[in-house]
Each structure stands twice: as structure tokens, then as C-alpha cells.
């Protein structure tokens, strides 16, 4: 099921429907002999209302790709877009607005402000933007994520899974166009992982969210609609509607 690099025609087609895309993305670190090419001309589009997993071995550039596309890091060359907005040209103020209004984030660890309660953490993107919290939506998310009785607690009083679900609720509170999840199950036991992935799946299917997830967990990737593979900073393949076995097979081919 291996496909080649998408043609420019495909990208133009994707533009109409994609929630985010990148064209010829290059990112290098260091200079001269010490230069490392983390991304070497990646062109990719992420579809709306789809759950996309980005996989690859360590150092393949998958985290760098996400950071560049989320506007957290600046590419050396190439263009990145959220919707039809090119983020390479944005100053910090606009990037901040973009993150606040249109993107949600979930990380592997250290997701929550330790001094705020779970509810306050979830509300944070709204209060930072000076908006009004949609209480109904918050209660609904909390119920779906089974953290309703934890809302008044501080992160230190919650389990890792509860903390991660709180972060998940925070990512969704503003109903962003796109959620970036960076190894969201990396620190979780298998039960919590499954719960988490199921919820991400549901938010795409039922709440029409778009999610891009970076992971090296094969089982996690199998929850996605599409898995793209990176190696040495280049896009090396993708699988649609993956199963665990498909993904394992692909990873083996990538030199494991």
C-alpha cells in the first residue's frame, strides 16, 4: 500500500479540503559539518475531520514536522498553512492568536499548570483569550472523559490518565479547527491509552474534530484514519484505514 510523494496536483486538490498543509518544508539544525536535516522537503496535507497519525523512528523528523506546522518552530524553508493562512509570515502576536483560537495541543507530559484545578486548566485557553466559558460544553466534555468528579482537584491529586484527559478537554474547549497531539499516550498505561485513543476517535467521528497525532505507538496509530510515515526527514509512505499489522509491517520496512 506504499504510495509515492504526492504530486503538486494532489496538493492543489487537497488545499480545498485540508485543515493544514505544508509545502517543501525544510528544517536544518546546526551549521557546516554539524548540520542536521530534520526535515528534507516535506509536502503534506491533513484533511478536515480526519484523524491522522504521523509515525517514524526516533530522529525521523516527526516531532519537528508537527512543531513547524503548529507554528511552534520556524522552518528553514518552505511554507506551512493552517486552513488557507500561511503561518510562516506571522509575527508572534498572530501566532499566539492562531494557537489560542484555532489549534489545540495535547502533549506526552507536563500538560497542566500545577497550581490550577482541573476545571481552571480546561478553561485556561478561554480565559486567556478573554472569552466566556461554554459551561455546557465543558460539563459534557468532562462527562465524556470521566473527570466530572475531578474538576475541583489539582493535577498533583490526579492520576496520569486523568491528567491527560483533562489536557484533552482543554484542547477541545474552544472547538479548534485542528488538534495536535504529541505522543499523547506515551506516559500512560494500556487501559488509559485505550480510553484516550477511543475518545480522540470519537471526537473526530462525533464532534467533527481534526486531529494530527505524532506517535511511535503502533496501537495508537491503528486508531487513525490515515498514517503517514517519516524517515530521515522525508515522507516515505502512508496507509489509509490502518490496522496494527499494516503499521507494524510498514515500520519494519523502515529499517527496524
Amino acid at each position: 500500500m506504499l504510495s509515492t510523494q504526492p504530486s503538486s496536483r494532489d496538493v492543489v486538490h487537497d488545499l480545498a479540503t485540508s485543515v493544514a498543509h505544508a509545502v517543501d518544508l525544510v528544517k536544518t539544525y546546526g551549521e557546516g559539518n554539524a548540520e542536521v536535516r530534520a526535515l528534507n522537503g516535506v509536502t503534506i496535507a491533513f484533511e478536515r475531520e480526519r484523524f491522522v497519525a504521523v509515525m517514524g523512528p526516533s530522529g525521523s523528523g516527526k516531532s519537528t514536522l508537527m512543531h513547524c506546522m503548529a507554528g511552534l518552530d520556524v522552518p528553514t524553508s518552505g511554507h506551512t498553512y493552517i486552513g488557507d493562512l500561511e503561518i510562516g509570515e506571522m509575527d508572534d502576536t498572530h501566532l499566539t492568536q492562531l494557537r489560542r483560537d484555532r489549534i489545540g495541543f495535547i502533549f506526552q507530559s507536563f500538560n497542566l499548570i500545577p497550581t490550577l484545578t482541573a476545571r481552571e486548566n480546561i478553561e485556561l485557553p478561554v480565559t486567556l483569550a478573554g472569552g466566556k466559558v461554554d459551561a455546557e460544553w465543558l460539563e459534557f466534555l468532562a462527562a465524556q472523559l470521566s473527570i466530572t468528579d475531578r474538576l475541583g482537584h489539582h493535577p498533583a491529586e490526579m492520576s496520569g490518565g486523568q491528567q491527560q484527559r483533562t489536557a484533552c478537554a482543554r484542547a477541545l474547549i474552544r472547538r479548534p479547527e485542528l488538534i495536535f497531539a504529541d505522543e499523547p499516550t506515551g506516559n500512560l498505561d494500556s487501559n488509559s491509552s485505550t480510553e484516550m485513543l477511543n475518545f480522540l476517535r470519537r471526537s473526530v467521528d462525533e464532534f467533527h474534530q481534526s486531529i494530527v497525532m505524532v506517535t511511535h505507538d503502533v496501537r495508537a496509530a491503528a486508531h487513525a484514519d490515515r498514517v503517514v510515515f517519516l524517515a530521515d526527514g522525508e515522507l516515505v509512505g502512508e496507509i489509509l484505514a490502518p490496522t496494527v499489522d499494516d503499521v507494524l509491517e510498514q515500520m519494519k520496512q523502515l529499517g527496524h
Partner: protein
Amino acid sequence: MWRVTLRGMLAHKLRLALTGLAIVLGVTFVSGTLVLTDTLHSTFSTLFSNVYRNVDLEVRGAAAFSNQTGALAVREPFAQSLLATVREVPGVALAGGSVSGYAQYVDKQGHAISTGGAPTIGTTYPASQRLSWFHLVAGTAPRTATQVVMDQGTAQKFGFHVGSRVTILLPGAPRNFTISGIVKFGTANNLAGATIAAFSLPTAQSLFDKVGRLDTIDVLVARGSSLSSVERAIATELPKGVEVVTGQTVADENTSLMNQILGFLSTALLVFAFIALFVGAFTIFNTFSIIVSQRTRELALLRIVGASRRQVFAMVQLEAFLMGLVASLLGLGLGVLTAMGLSALLRAFGISLPPGSLVFSARTVVVSLLVGVGVTMISAVSPARHAVRIAPVRALASYSSAPATSRRRRVIVGAALGVGGLAVLVGGLARGTIALVGVGAVAIFVGVAMLAPFIARPMASVLGRPLAATLGASGVLGRENSMRSPRRTAQTASALMIGLALVAAFTVFGASISRSATGSIKDAIAADYVITGSVTGSPISGISNAAPGVISHIPGVDTVTRVDSGVFEFGHSVFNLAAIPRDSLSRTVTLRMQSGDAGSALGAGEVLISSTTATSKNLSVGDTMRVRFATTGWTSVRVGGVFKPNAILGSYVVSERFFAQHYAPGAQPVAILLRSTTGPTAAETSAITAALRPFANLKVQTRSQFIATQQAQVNQILGLVYALLGLAIIIALIGIVNTLLLSVFERTREIGLLRAVGMRRRQVRTMIRSEALILAVFGGVIGVILGTGLGVALSVSLSQQGITDVVVPYSNLVLFVVVAALLGLAASSWPARRAARLNVLDAIAVE
């Protein structure tokens, strides 16, 4: 925003309390000073308006010199016949004449009653109770030549009553009086600490050498007459050199003089408050820098979920604002308590203040809050900007490397500040502008603090070597830790550096003053004995003019020199001159001449001037000076010689005969110098002391004792300065405690790991102490070097003002570094114990 800040602050109360303490102390100093000076100001203005409440108009000598006005002006007495003239003026209901002068009580044990700086006033008891500023509480007015009225303050403190006998020291010989009455001043027992002896007019006139003359005439205007028309009517009757003013004017003049003195006091205290706050600013800056770096991930996370740069900046500033506000309010409260304590202290010194009248003005609140909050917020600006620059990606574990900081900009800005500061400082010293000196010093300190990180690493390495060699693993780790973050090491040490730099600067300066003073006294005096009065060197020395005559009869006393002092006008300014008998030259007084011959010049009625005066006034031997004396008016005098700076005689010296020609008789000498045939012996000393016993306020000292006393006076002032700077040192130490606590917290995992692999608690403590030691010695060494430089610069620049020797007291300076090291060790004891107490498992488990 508020919530994140507030929660963060509540989670770190200890850290905030320690940092805030620096501001609390500084603001306490500021508000205490303001409350105290406001209170004193209000006390004095009330006092003076009460004193002059019953006086509508006052006739007095006009200011004798140009450019002199108000309470400090020199005024000559006028003929008593003017009193009858004034009484004749229509609209004058009452008029009473008065003279005043020096009168100091002697207590029952035979000691002079001193006031700690306030005047000992002898005056005239008013002729009519209606003109009186005294409130007679017992007895009667003085009627005979042996009666006196005493103030209640002195009476109570020294157990005098109506009918008691009391000895009073006077310009002439001391005399005995009977107390006829006791007075208060409104509700106060004494007049701002002064003692009062009131005599009948004829008695006062004879005691103060003013027979047939008056200093003032107090006038009460008849009911129905207008004050200003009576004032004008009196003015037309007055001869030249006599003026009439309202009582209110006199009260205002006295109040404004008091305000001037209080202004000096509050400026001096506020300078130290400023120093404390400046050192505090470094502590705050450092703490916030550490807080920001420790919260890097948290701040980055906030940025990721949508906090703008402005919001992050505002968050750090809000924290600073709240901390500054709380600390300033606390400081304000403590300042009021301090002022109350100081008022109580004044009362203990015998200065009676009306009770319960602490003045707490709105200005005190505003200034204290502005200063406290302002300093905190400004100190937090740079850390806040640092926080703003944190990239959102730093929230992700994969990005843990610290961002590169601009070393070059730091070097350039630091060097520019240092060099610019030095230029401003030197300029300020050259022009004598204290504000410029302050600005320059601040710039130098900030510049050095900015450059300090670059030498922190090598210095910590060198300073830590002996520790590493002697303390084993703990010493090695301690050294490594202080080298690890040179910037933090330097920032923490900076506060201590400033404190020690100031201490060192004052030490060098003080030692130079002390040496110069004693050196020049040695060069100035050939006498075996020096006799001084209540206040050394002051025109109101209180030395009886009868004293020289008493001593000259003592066998073995060879030469008795009375040194007189007087004021004169020259070039629109008023100066002091000293007068000595011509034959004392080289017997008791040494004048090292630069040009001219002292003996012949004094004999010819010429003036001798010091070489510094010759330079600044552009005068040389043979020039003529146009000068004015209060009694005799304008005259010309020839410069007969130029002498090298002389600590005893000042800038202008004339002969005894010249002095007698131009000044009123009955002047009190400022010092008496003795030369004996044998040199000082115990027998002679006791003979002189015995002869002077009736003059209870006189102090007999041998030449070496006198020099030691002068040195002690310099040291006393230096001690006071040290005490005031001590506050800055304390604040710097709080900074060290704070930094070490924060760094222990930051390295919880690391310390846990060390413990897990077998480091004992004692070794952990030793490690933290080594770090503190390196920090303190680093700050101490740089501070002392910097301070020595500043002190030398200050001393050299004042060489014209009489600092002839620049002394660097090396042993003291080394001692300061040692003390700094010990203080650093003391400051580390709490953080060290905290680190040693860390539970190994918990420490490793912390994320």
C-alpha cells in the same frame, strides 16, 4: 491571568516572603524617615509659633552681613534707650527689652548639664506676663541679681526646686543663683531639648556683657490698632541697623531653619534607605530570574495554550506588583513603629516632644508605596522580558537546552555603564555634585554586576579549589555547582558586592579623614594641653573667658593661648576667622608657612590665609581684602602670609589685637592651648584640672589625648555609617539565603540522586555551604576591590577640602572579606539543612 499569578504566589509563600523582606526593610527605612522628620517638623513649627504667640512685633538688629537672613543671621545689639522710644509710639501697648547669651547649668554633682546638641540658653525674663512665652508653673519671676528661672525639663531631670541653689556657667566666671521660679513652654517641659536660664534684664545685661544694650524689644500692639500701621510707625523711629518684624516672621524664620536641619537629616537617612533598596533590587531581580527559569515549562505551556507575550509579561509584573504592594504596606507599618521608637529615643535623650503627635502624612504613604512597588516592578522587568522570550516549544520535554543569551550585548552594555558611570562619578566629585556621584556609583555597580558573570566562572574555580582539595566530593561538587551557572553566581554575589563595596569605600574614606585630621592636628599644635568646652571648635564652645586667667597662675604653665573665633564678610559670603596671640606662634600653635612671615604679619595687623583659600580665592601675599565686621563695618586688610592647611585654625588667622579691635568684648574662646615648662606630667594635669573645676564643662586633654578624641569622633561617625549600611548587608544575605533555597529546590532530583548513590546528609550540607562560601567570597572580593577604588577616588577628589593622606587599611579590608565569608556560611545554614533533610525517594520521584 490573575488566577495563575495568585495561585503561583500562594504556592511559593516562603520564597515571596524572603524576597519581599528586602523591600519591607527598605520601605521601613523610607517611611520611618518621613514620619520622623514630619513629626519633628510639626513639633518645631508648633513650638515656635507658641513661643512667639504673645509677641506682635519684634525690634532687633538688622542682619549684619549681606546675603544673610533669618534665624542664622548675625545681629548686633542696639542701645537700650530705643526701648523708651518704642514705648512712645502710638498703638504700642507694651514693650519689653531682652538680651540673651550662653548660660549652662551645673548639676548637684558638679557636672555641666549638656543637651546633646541643643542650645543652652540664657535669656531675659519678660517684664510683663502678657509678653511672656514662659508659663510660670512655680515660684516667681527673677528680681535680684542672684535669682534665676529654670525650665521644668531641667528641674525635673536634675531635682531642682524653687529655692534651690544652682551654679551656672557663663561667658565670664561661673556664678551661683537661687531658683526663683520654674517655667514650661505651653505644654512642653523644655524647648526642643534646650535648657533655659532666665534672668532679670539688668542681670542678663551684665552677665552677657550687654550693659545699656538690648538684643530685642518685644512689642504688644494695643487692641484696636492695626499691626502693620504700628509696625510702620515703629520702623520710622528706628536708627540704621535696627529693624522691626512681626512675631510671626520670627517664628517662621526659626521654623525654616529647623526645616533646613531636618532636611539634611532626612536626606542623609534617605540616602541609606536608597542604598538598602538598591541592594534589595538586586535580590528581587535575582529571585525573579530564578523563578522565571524554573517556571520555563509552565510559562511555555501557557504560551502554547494561547497566552500572548503581553500576558506573560503582565503576569510576571503582576506578581512583582503584588509582592511590592504587600511588602510596602508592611514596611509602612514597621516604619511608623520605627519612628515611634525613635521619638521615644529622643525623649529619653531629654528632648521633650508633645506626646501622641506622630505625623503620618498622605505623602509618606504615597512615597513609600511608590518606592516599594516601583523598585520591585522595575527589578522584575528584565526577568519578565526573559519570560516573554521563552519559546512555546520549551514546554515540550524534548526541548531542554537553554536558549543562548547574547553575551556580546551584555559585555557592551555592562562596559558602557561601568565606564560611563565612572565618568559621571569623577565629574560629580570634581564639581562637588553629590547626586552625580550617586548616579555614577549606581551605574558602576550595575555595569560591574553585568560583567561579573564573565569572571564568575574562573573566580569560582579558583576560590573553590581549596574547598575541593580539603572537603572531598562535597567540596568538588560545591565548586562545580557555583561554576555551573556563572550568571546566577554573579547575580547573587552582586548584592553582597554592593554592600561590601560601600563599606569598603567608607572605610578607606574614613581612614583617610581620620589620618588627615590627626596628621594635621599633630602638625597644627605644639601645645602640651588642649582645653575644650562643651562643643569642640564651635563659637558656642562654652569656654568661660575667665578660664585662661585662672590657669596662667599654675606653676609650670609657660604659655596660655586663647584661640578666639569670629565671623566676617568677604566677597558676599560669611567666613570664620581664628585669632591667636602673636607670641603663641611655635610655642602652642604651629603654622607651616608657604609664603610670608607669620610673626611679622600678625604683628602688623595683617591676615594669614591657608593655601587652599589662597588658591580658591586667588589671593597671595601683598593682596588687600575688603572685609566687613558686624561691629566695625567695612575695612581693608592686607594678606600677610599663606600657611599650609591647619586643622585647628581653619582658613583665616589674625592676631589677638586685631580681634579685640573688630569684635565686641566678652567673647568666649573656642579653645585654650597650654605649653608647660616640663611637658605634661600627672601632677601638672591634676593641678590644671583642679584649677578648672569650677568651669564644669571644660575638658583638659594632653595633646595625644586630644588627637585620640578627634580620631574617636571620626570613628563614631564611621560606626554610624556602618550601622546604616548594615541593613544593606542584611538584605544581601537574605538574597543569598533565597538563591540557595531556590537552587536546592531546583536540584531536588540531583540531590536525591546523590543521596541515593551514597552521599551522607553531612556531605550534602557541606556541599551547599561550599557554594555559599564561594558566593560570599566572590562578592566580598569584588566588592572590596571596587569599594577601595571608590574610596580612594572620593578621598583624592577631596584633597582640597583637607584630606591630605589617602589611607587604604588593608587589614580591615581583608577582615571584611572574612566577615562576608562567615556571613555567607551563616546564610547557608538553613538551605543546607533543607537540602540534607530531603527524602531520597521523594526527591527522585519529583518530575
